[in-house]
């Protein structure tokens, strides 16, 4: 039952992404709220699994976006995998891990999107894309990372309350 919390949270994140976050641009880059949210959720110690979150968020973003549906699904799964690896290695500095996941996840999503667009016949100039879309997107995601991490930590503590010690 606890996993069902993913449904309203992801719906809210994708709605906010499409309605608000996508309109706030830095050069041509935008933040990716579902990506940052997934990274923050997967970083929480209380959370048992976040794979289904990635699939649900990816399918929903793929449904809204003109990109092929598997691009966000696979990218978000990559973010969860990254979070699980980094959480074990730098567990003493969760914010550092969060920034690392956000950075690598945004890079991964960008290059995967570029590759898929190229296969579908849309060739974009890589240097321009990196300077005008990817780097500003990374910066915006980093800015979003701290508040989103705090919100997801509170959510995780609410969903998975710590057992009372007698």
């Amino acid at each position, binding site marked *: 039952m606890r996993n069902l919390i993913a449904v309203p949270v992801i719906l809210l994140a994708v709605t906010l992404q499409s309605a608000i976050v996508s309109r706030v641009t830095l050069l041509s880059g935008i933040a990716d709220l579902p990506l940052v949210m997934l990274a923050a959720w997967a970083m929480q110690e209380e959370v048992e699994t976040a794979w289904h979150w990635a699939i649900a968020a990816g399918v929903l973003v793929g449904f809204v976006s*003109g990109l092929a549906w598997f691009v966000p699904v696979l990218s978000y799964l990559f973010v969860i995998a990254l979070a699980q690896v980094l959480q074990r290695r730098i567990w003493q500095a969760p914010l550092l891990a969060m920034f690392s996941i956000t950075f690598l996840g945004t890079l991964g999503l960008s290059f995967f999107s570029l590759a898929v667009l190229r296969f579908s016949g849309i060739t974009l100039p890589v240097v321009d894309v990196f300077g005008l*879309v990817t780097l500003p997107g990374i910066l915006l995601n980093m800015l979003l990372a701290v508040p989103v991490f705090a919100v997801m930590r509170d959510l995780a503590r609410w969903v998975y309350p710590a057992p009372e010690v007698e």
Partner: protein
Amino acid sequence: MALALGGYFSSGSNVFTTSLVTVQSWFSSRFVALQEFLTAPRDMASLRQRNTELEAEVSELQAQVIQLQQEVGETEILAALVDFQTGSPENTYRAAAVIGRDPSPFLQYVIINRGSNDGIQRGMPVVTNQGLVGRVDAVIADAARIQLITDPASNVNVRLQNAEVDASLVGSVTGDVTLDLIPQDVDLERGDLVLTSGLGGGYPPDLIVGQVVNIRTSDIDLFQQAAVQPVVDFNQLQIVLVIVNFKPVDFSPLIPIP
């Protein structure tokens, strides 16, 4: 009395009245001070309460002003769209509000709040009173996704009004649009108006797209290129019109499969 009338008491009465006035002033000022001291707290409290009430009223009025300004803005947009609609009676339009943008930064799409329930179909052109916006890319019951002409995958057949020559308008990842496939012998000028040509059947002809702002010519290239400033401000899109009586031509069955 006689002495007083004679002015013999004047100096004495002056001293008396001066002393009296001084004493009365002293008492009066002390009384006023005491009165202020006793009544001020009550007045301060009532003033603060009144101030809070007025601040709340000002906030409410400011919110109303903002709401009314927003409504005026929407009404102006709608009035312009109605004017545009009456000016082009050959087309049937369906107005829709822009409710979102594509979550991917690599694509230029917007989401509108009208779908197949309102007669929207894939391929229908989308315009504003200013000019061409794009076309419907995907539809569900109550929403549709519009591919803007600024999208990197967008390709619109256009013509230059002054030069009477056909060209191709392509988008980019940054949202800039470029004219391509312009023959080298065509004399392009800044400010030339770009209209849809109707070739290919994807868009109706003579929709305004934008103006030429920069021309790139090179002797070693087959064609000229030109940067175009779209007439539509895609960052401020709020309400659009879908041309619902336009059926795009699907010529994909005619394309030979390699």
